[in-house]
């Protein structure tokens, strides 16, 4: 029972963060701030959501698989973000304005 409540709270928070991150990725002004918002969904949203499901599934193979998924996402998400930011920053050398003005970048 208590587990149910906790898991529902986790799921609700997860849903909230996933949504807020998505909103941020859409609304924020430039690439780097959007990246910040996107990583919110990737980290907090994922942990909370998958955590909520894990509590629901109890100790089973499903939980192990969920933990594996979580592990992979935790490994890959930040790496991908880093690599992306790095590429965007490097691209400043040749063509694109990598650190765009506050109004947004250029295509």
């Amino acid at each position, binding site marked *: 029972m208590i587990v149910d409540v906790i898991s529902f709270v986790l799921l609700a928070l997860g849903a909230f963060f*996933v949504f807020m991150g998505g909103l941020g990725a859409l609304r924020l002004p430039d690439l780097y701030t*959007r990246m910040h918002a996107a990583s919110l969904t990737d980290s907090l949203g994922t942990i909370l959501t998958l955590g909520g499901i894990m509590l629901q599934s109890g100790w089973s193979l499903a939980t192990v698989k969920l933990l*594996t998924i979580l592990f992979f*996402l935790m490994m890959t998400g930040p790496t991908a973000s880093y690599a*992306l930011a790095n590429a965007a920053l490097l691209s400043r050398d040749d063509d694109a304005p990598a650190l765009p003005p506050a109004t947004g970048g250029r*295509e």
Partner: protein
Amino acid sequence: MYYVVTTAILVTMALALTRALVGPTVYDRVLAVNMFGTKTVLLVAIIAFLSGRPDFLDLALAYALINFVGVLAVLEFFQKKRHFGRRS
């Protein structure tokens, strides 16, 4: 509750798609694709759980892995482009 989470994920997918459509830089689009990928992982995990077939979590795992390799392939692509661009 699952439905709420699923709805949130779907809305976020739509938002990410919008970001991928409007850009403006290519990096924004890559960001959106990556975000879209992780949301798909979450979606599949939840639906697998909802439909009572937790053995399908394998799919979510596969998506997570592929998504990562996809982003790295994009970076390699940028790097290659820059390399070739500089030479010519």
